[in-house]
């Protein structure tokens, strides 16, 4: 799932600049993250109204990253959108762009920061799990990914900063290499890590291309 976090209210209000605004949410990831579901959209409506900002309408897209679906749904809100000068999108970076592709008259602004592709551990607790690198190598590490979970993306880790199973950059972050070693050790497969993992072929990744 795409994990998002709401921008702080001040910067959202600063981006709206007192203009009439239409609010868009998303039924999927942002709903599960509690950042852009119906509840959060409605809450945003009331917050903005309290700040004397004219909210012309709102909708929760299903999901925001579905271009044709968005086009159809937003058509039903033509009049509300016409009155708006800004469209505040409470969805991931993809949702913002899909909406911006459809709406011509108003300026589309992001209300969320998109953080990562990750897992919901429990309510409001998320962990990064994938960097969308274009060539999955988790078969080497028994279903654990050091590209996304090691802050140095080391393929021949751990680095010298792994202490008591925690990463050098934060005591809250498990050293993924410690987990990889433990898991393979339990399965008596630690010998697999004796082989040098070759540099990654980043041409398989689309991050820097299209």
């Amino acid at each position, binding site marked *: 799932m795409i994990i998002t976090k709401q921008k702080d209210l001040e910067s959202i209000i600063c981006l709206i600049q007192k203009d009439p605004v239409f609010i868009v949410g998303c039924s999927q990831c942002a709903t599960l993250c509690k950042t852009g579901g119906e509840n959060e959209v409605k809450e945003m409506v009331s917050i903005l109204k309290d700040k004397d900002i004219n909210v012309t309408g709102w909708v929760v897209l299903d999901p925001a990253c579905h271009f044709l679906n968005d086009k159809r749904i937003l058509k039903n809100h033509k009049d509300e959108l016409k009155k708006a000068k800004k469209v505040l999108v409470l969805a991931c970076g993809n949702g913002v762009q899909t909406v911006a592709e459809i709406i011509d008259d108003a300026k589309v602004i992001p209300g969320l920061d998109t953080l990562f592709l990750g897992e919901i551990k429990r309510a409001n607790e998320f962990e990064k799990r994938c960097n969308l690198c274009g060539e999955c190598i988790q078969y080497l590490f028994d279903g654990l990914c050091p590209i996304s979970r090691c*802050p*140095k*993306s*080391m*393929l*021949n*880790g*751990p*680095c*010298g*900063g*792994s*202490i*008591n*199973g925690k990463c*050098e*950059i934060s005591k809250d972050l498990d*050293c993924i290499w*410690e987990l990889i*070693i*433990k898991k393979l050790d339990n399965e008596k497969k*630690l010998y697999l*890590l*004796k082989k*040098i*993992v*070759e*540099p*990654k072929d*980043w041409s398989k990744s689309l991050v820097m291309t299209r």
Partner: protein
Amino acid sequence: MQYRSNLEKVLKTEGFAVTAEIGPPKGCDAEKIKEKAEIVKNCADAFNVTDNQTAVVRLSSFGSSVILLDMGLEPIMQMACRDRNRIALQSDVLGACAVGVRNILFITGDHQCFGNHPGARGVFDLDSIQLIKIVKDMRDEGVFQSGDEIKFGNPNVFIGGAANPFADPLSFRVDRLEKKILAGVDFIQTQSVFNLERFNLWMDEVCSRGLDKKVFVLAGVTPLKSLKMCERMKFHVPGVDIPDEIYNRMKNASDPAKEGFDISLELIKEIKKTKGVSGVHITALFWEDIIPSLVSESGLL
């Protein structure tokens, strides 16, 4: 026998070498690094110049190495994977070799969040083991990482790496050293030794696997200048292991600098006795002027 560098020669002929670190300045004033180099020039066989250590921007290790070469000192140029991708790293290996650098030490590098530009994007295209293997292949096979052929001169460098005997998990720490040897490392400098017990455990395992015959291990020594520095290293520098006993000695000392110096002397004495150790690597962080008395009083000179 042709040696790639003085360091290689000393290690292979005398069996014990001393290296010392010269931290490049925060600025381009060459005099600053020359002053430090003057102080330590007769104290070691080769001199490490760090590559933006702890992710703080300093005079580059490449530029610093050229300054040392001009002074007639032998640099060990450090290169970290944090700030450059494989194109820049391979290019800088060629560049350094072209101007006369003969020892290069490769590390993955401290994470950028520790430095003075925490907003920087870390590169980490490679890790240290991959980079060591790439340079070994450039040197011995004449090929770049891509397989493309080197046309005009393979970089004939003595390849260094780092090891941290104090990081976890202990058993895998020796496996990882073995992996660096497999990649092609010629010499290893360890994280500064304070916890002798743990260092000896690691060294025992190194020797029992016969790895001391395959790579030169230089043990790191850092004289503690003050209680503040001791505390910083104990509590805030990743991968450093200062036992409470040493911490308490520093805490109770009437002259902490003298105590730190004495601790280093004791450590060097023990390290010299340790089987499989091929040298001492002195990292006197911002205290380079202590190095001459440290090497003379410990009998390293």
